[in-house]
């Protein structure tokens, strides 16, 4: 296995595009190294992107933030601007692993690993984030929703790298939140994850909403019906009840040792409701 740590994006893309066998990008390595060690993957080339300066930055852009693919969870968590604008995305990313893992793990890696239970992804989907992808054919932007296509599968082409995640600007009186369910406090894979983002008008009525669920289907879900039942309400009990029902209805989980279909479906509704309440409180300021 060959290991490369190029200093420019062009060099990284070239290495990946020209690789003869299987090639992998290495960001924090908190998924990749585990998979390497267990023998689940055996790449011929590993390209470390942490030496590429432009991938290590968080930059303000059009009222939102562009987060480089090599920014760790810990660095993101220390960024006041992102915290203030998208607290739900930051809290979701900070849930990944432990303090040690936070020092390495990236949002882009969480996205590209394509686990349906990835914690930061529902929050990014609720935020309507965009992934910027650079490859042999140039640059393209795509919705984060379209990066993972199934467990462990992505839409990335040969030689393509996610270089940044863009979290857009949002109106005043907006808020987001992410909650996940695991049987202990930390260090486990989500049984269910739920993210909600809302924007309110001056009266406190919800005018825009996005609801996203993780670990309840082969991909992270965007639950349009959940958003629809919130819009036009002040997130009263009826609206929250309807949201919970919509969230549960959207689920098509699997049975496994972490949870049964019934439990996951049930808890998805509970978490969506609670995340919506928190997002709503944050939006009110």
């Amino acid at each position, binding site marked *: 296995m060959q290991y490369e740590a190029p200093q420019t994006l062009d060099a990284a893309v070239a290495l990946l595009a020209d690789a003869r066998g299987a090639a992998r990008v290495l960001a924090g390595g908190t998924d990749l190294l585990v998979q390497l060690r267990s023998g689940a993957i055996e790449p011929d080339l590993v390209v470390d992107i942490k030496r590429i300066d432009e991938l290590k930055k968080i930059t303000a852009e059009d009222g939102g933030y562009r987060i480089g693919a090599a920014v760790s969870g810990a660095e993101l968590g220390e960024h006041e601007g992102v915290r203030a604008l998208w607290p739900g995305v930051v809290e979701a990313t900070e849930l990944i692993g432990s303090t040690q893992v936070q020092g390495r793990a990236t949002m882009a890696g969480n996205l590209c690993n394509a686990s349906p239970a990835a914690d930061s992804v529902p929050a990014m989907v609720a935020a309507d984030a965009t992934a910027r992808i650079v490859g042999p054919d140039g640059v393209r932007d795509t919705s984060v929703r379209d990066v993972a296509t199934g467990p462990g599968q992505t839409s990335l082409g040969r030689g393509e790298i996610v270089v940044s995640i863009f979290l857009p600007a949002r109106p005043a009186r907006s808020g987001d939140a992410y909650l996940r369910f695991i*049987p*202990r*406090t*930390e260090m*486990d894979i989500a049984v269910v994850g739920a993210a909600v983002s809302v924007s309110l008008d001056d009266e406190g009525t919800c005018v825009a909403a996005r609801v996203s669920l993780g670990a309840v289907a082969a991909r992270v879900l965007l639950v349009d019906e959940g958003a629809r039942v919130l819009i036009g309400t002040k997130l009263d009990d009826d609206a929250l009840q309807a949201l919970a029902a919509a969230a549960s209805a959207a689920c098509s989980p699997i049975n496994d040792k972490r949870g*049964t279909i019934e439990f996951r479906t049930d808890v998805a509704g*509970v978490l969506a409701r609670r995340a919506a309440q928190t997002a709503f409180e944050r939006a009110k300021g």
Partner: protein
Amino acid sequence: MNQVDTSPNAIPNVNLRQVGKNKPRNDSPTKVYGKAIYAGDLIMDDMLFAKVLHSDRACADIKSIDVSVAKTLPGVHSVLTADDLPATNAVMTDMPGQVGGGTKNTKQPILAKERVRFYGEPIALVAAESYELAQRALDLIVVDYEDTEGVYDAFDAQKPDAPIVYGNDNIVAAYKVRKGDIEKGFQEADFVLENTYSSQYQEQAFLEPEAAVAWVDEHDILNIRSSTQVVEHFRAVADALGMPHNKVHLQAPYVGGGFGGKEVMTIEVWLALLAMDAQRPVKLKQTRENSFISHGPRHPFTITHKTGVTKDGKITAAKITLTSDAGAYAKLSPYILLYATVGATGPYRVDNLWIDSTSAATNNLPTCAYRGFGTMQATTACEAQMEELSKLIGLDSLEFRRKNFIQTGDPNATGQIIRSAVWSDQCATKAREALGDKPKSTEHTVYGHGLACYQQSYGRIRWMKDTSESWVGLEMDGTLIVRCAVTDIGAGQMSALAQIAGEVLGVPMEEITVYFGDGHVNPLAGTSTASRALYMTGKATELAAKNVRNNLFECMAEYFDVRPEELDLGDSKVFVQDNPERCMSVKDMAKHCAAQGVHRHSLEIYRAPPSEGLDPETGQGEVFPDFTYGAHAATVAVDTDTGEVTVIKSVGAHDVGQSINRQAVEGQIEGSALMGQGFALSEELILEKGVLKNGSFSEYLIPTSEDVPEIESIILESRSGLGPFGSKGIGEPVFSPVAASIVNAVADAIGTRIHHLPLTPEKVLTAINEEKTKEAAE
């Protein structure tokens, strides 16, 4: 000071200088600075690295094993299968104490020959120049299996047509207790309550997976430096290899936790075989994943209690059946079943008693020793039943327990009269008080308080005739040395001996050197198991130190012209009690006594009280040296929408007899609080037809540091134990009631009981919803 106890065993209050104080342990600095050398840290010239081929089937015939290609791999020095082993191919998995070798029933094949009986059974051993090479060699071994029909349930295993895993009938052990008249007892009852409780597999999850290095030295002695709780296994290694006992040297450096998982032999015999075959040093460190299948987890138990009580809360009769799953080999299952049988009635007096207990073999993982050793599972069931009984008769659950607690002088389940203090009531009262008021329920959170008491033995089964030796000596410069082959498995075993010798001889513990863990240069001390290490090795050390003190006092009495009883030792000085000005430093005393030819060393033996076993028909007899009593209480919060349980407060209150080191006692209570919490809420090995499905720390959920609740340790000291200064064993006792208290707290919070552990969110949510449906229907 605590109240004074009046039990026959109690010793009067004495003024202690070091014992019972909150002192940093002697082993802390080396561990904190990362200097301590563990078994897997040792590096030797020419060392090879070993890997083990574990079966990936639970029940299969082995048609053939082809190692021919693996053997040709350059850098591979030894590939062993059953065909290469001594014809007996058997290793003893018993813990014989002083009474000699184990019975044939506790032998297990070293490597599987024609058949594998459980998932993970070892099949082949490889030693090579590196772990990578050893792994490649393993990958080249071809095992041709043919799956056969297995049995995966302890009840199915007892059916007439069950596949046979063990003996003629899969029964690994069975006990009965027949006491009083249960017919009459049930007639006297106003209420009879019957419930079945069951518990799961639990993994020891020690920090340090099995590790050892073995080599043959220039005297043809086979040396093994291993992470073990029991250096006396040198005998079993020698027997397995057909060698004389004095040609095998097993030593334990600091051990990174055992909890029973390193009690029966783990990897030592494999390494011994490889080192003998390759005639080079060989190291093996199990990966975490392989560690899950390299020792036996906790036995799952199914326990049915049928209890009769009067309306004022007196237990009149109990009929109890216990069934444990022993897995494919006996290991320590018979002993564990016995502990569960003795512990079935908890710390309560039941005069009309009928117990049947059975341990059955299956093709599941062989289960073995784990902190609490059957008593813990029995306690968990018993305490649930106590709570349900008090609910049934409408009595406060502590009030109900008070009416039934065993008192000093009472017989327990096997008719053994308790001679030490029984402070169940004091401990339970204090533990419950410490919880304070129950928080008020909120929108989707309900709270519960739970309490559990126990009776847990310390010291090994009496017919093992357990002994421990220790040596204490005063050097010419006045420094002290203790030699005692106790294994230090992280609980402060080594440090406690320094504190004890220091107390007796008036020298600060931190100045004392203790040589431990190596039974070929230090006197054999027995196992660090069964909550006996401090009790037995501490007692032997206390006795040896007292001998030295007597010898010194005899000489110094002459010097000061007083009687020996008038002298004392403290602050590194010998002095006349009534006139402390008349003193001499320990340093000068050592010189003085040496010049007089005084014997400044002593080797002592402590013998636990023996007995001759149980009456097989009635189950009556003396099983253990003594018991520890206490209580644990917990407050939990339950999320009624998700079923998630959070432990908010966890309080252990225990009569430890006499704490030797308070910090170490608190450490035991705090560690127990978490280990018991894991058992109550999240830990469970999942086996599907014997195949382990969650053998890794990403799938098997132990509590993490984020799950630690507020923990309070309440230490009571009756000074009535058999250990040094009246101490009792605490390693297991403080753990046994924890899960039960949390389970009872959950029942209190949600108003209904879940009978099968662990209480996963899913089970709790289902129970809450069922309860809601029931209430709606009423």
